[in-house]
């Protein structure tokens, strides 16, 4: 039985909405954008709070440095552009001017992953999570729907220290509601199973839920965890799952190297080694196309998660027999 796909707002729209709320409630919040405010959705903040909005023009490196200076004076800068431009172009500035001095800068990008669609590979960010995860002290998140995005953005403003949030371009399937609660660094268990744990973030959470239904039809009971925070990793939840199911599939709209899969595998191999499979972009760039076509072509839809779950279960049973 397929679960209902009800599209809500894009997570970037939820970011724009949360920013306006922050503008009203927190005078320390300032917003910087690099000439993409209509796409990143910071424009609404800019219209309502023009004194606290800085359109920096197309210069990401300077923008991050300026944000560091503002943060050093007690402001809470939210800095936005497309994920690939902001994160790839300013790794040095994020390192030297933000992460190293532990400044209170919030980097929120849009157009994460390949679901950017028709604009093609140059606009699709598949490396951002790996890059930011290498920076000590940075919180790294990918919310799955409008409700989690909005609440996590609000929490990021309260968090002391650097935070990275990746949002997406397309409308995201609704998973939660206004009353759902979220906490930075704490995953959400959406389904509880005993055979295999499907860990996902962003749009992949919905795909994992669909996969869980299919697996149920095959007699396989899968847990589904929305691990919106990659760093710090929810180790307690992962350990609990590892002990109960003993097999993982990690699903992410990111290059297979250095993202959520790497984080989960590193933790599990150290604390509780169990077989892990990965649904991710296989060390390649994508291309132009409709978001759904791209997710399908690059192996990021529910059927691929089902296959990965079956593979990991085969490994698990061969290990048990051995």
């Amino acid at each position, binding site marked *: 039985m397929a679960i209902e796909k009800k599209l809500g707002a894009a997570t970037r729209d939820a970011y724009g909405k949360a920013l306006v709320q922050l503008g009203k409630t927190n005078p320390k919040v300032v917003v910087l954008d690099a000439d993409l405010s209509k796409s990143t959705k910071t424009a609404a903040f800019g219209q309502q709070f023009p004194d606290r909005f800085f359109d920096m023009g197309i210069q990401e*490196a*300077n923008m991050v440095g*300026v944000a*560091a*200076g*503002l943060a*050093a004076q007690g402001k809470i800068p939210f800095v936005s552009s497309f994920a690939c431009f902001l994160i790839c172009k300013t790794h040095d500035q994020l390192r*030297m*001017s933000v992460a190293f001095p532990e400044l209170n800068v919030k980097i929120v990008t849009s157009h994460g992953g390949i679901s950017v669609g028709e604009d093609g590979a140059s606009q699709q960010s598949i490396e951002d999570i790996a890059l930011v995860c290498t920076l000590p002290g940075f919180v790294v998140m990918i919310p799955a729907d409008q409700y989690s995005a909005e609440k996590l953005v609000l929490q990021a403003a309260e968090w002391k220290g650097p935070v990275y949030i990746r949002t997406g371009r397309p409308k995201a399937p609704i998973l939660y509601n206004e009353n759902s609660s979220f906490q930075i660094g704490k995953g959400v268990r959406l389904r509880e199973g005993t055979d295999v744990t499907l860990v996902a973030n962003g749009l992949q959470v919905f795909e994992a839920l669909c996969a869980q239904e299919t697996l149920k039809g095959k007699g396989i009971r899968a847990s589904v965890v929305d691990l919106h925070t990659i760093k710090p990793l929810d180790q307690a939840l992962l350990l609990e799952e590892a002990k109960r199911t003993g097999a993982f599939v990690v699903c992410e709209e990111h290059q297979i190297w250095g993202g959520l899969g790497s984080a989960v595998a590193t933790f599990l191999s150290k604390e509780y080694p169990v077989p892990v499979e990965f649904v991710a972009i296989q060390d390649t760039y994508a291309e132009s196309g409709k978001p759904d076509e791209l997710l399908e072509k690059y192996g990021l839809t529910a059927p691929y998660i089902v296959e990965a779950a079956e593979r990991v279960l085969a490994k698990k049973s061969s290990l048990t027999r051995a």
Partner: protein
Amino acid sequence: MQKLVNIPDLCAKAREMRCEIIRMLGEAGSGHPGGSLSCADLLTALYFNALKHDPKNPKWPDRDRLVLSKGHGAPALYAALALCGYFPKEQLLTLRQLGSPLQGHPDMRKLPGLEASTGSLGQGLSIGIGIALAQILDKKDYRTYVVLSDGECNEGQIWEAAASAAHFKLNHLIAILDYNKYQLDGAVKDILDMEPMAKKWESFGWNVCEIDGHNMVEILEALEWAEKQGGAPSMIIAHTIKGKGVSFMENNNNFHGVAPTQEETVKALQELGGK
């Protein structure tokens, strides 16, 4: 703190600063003497005359801010801060040692008086813009000073920041270029010539003046001039000599990133009258 207003007093203080720089680097056994000595007069004029600051209250909200964008000049900044009283002078000799707050390049988390962490060139001017924007948002009157190196102007981010600061009309932002004509691999004119330097900054919309960066009268006049400029940020291009004050280090780029030996330290201190 008590300002030094007489030129001889400031020159004496600059000499004292150079002695501390040599002692620190001699003790540390590594570091950047050339670019520390070239900006010693500039930092003396700033910390002992121009800057509004209180070493007893490093986080005073109304203080002027200084960002040393050329982070490898840290010994000069540390010497200035110590001589002002931000921390005991004896601590200078812990430069670059494990556990010392005097890191090889400035770490703002570890030492009072540091407004930024720097060391990857090209980033300090952007940080200065952020501080200057905060000053406007907070309706404060303080000034933000950023000390740049000439080699650093090779970096694209400097020119992003140059355009940005002018666009935001940051007249409380004052940049000082320690134009000592050398970068690590050789003379700036040979590695990546940035001339015409003044015209570049002017064309980006800055108020620009050029001075002898070792002439205390000219430095003070330039800092006063910069305070009076309106409508745009100001750039003081200070022509300096790398290694200034120690005969065998002056214009000798071997001392860009190599500390003096024990023997050289003694000789340099003798020249500077610091024993």
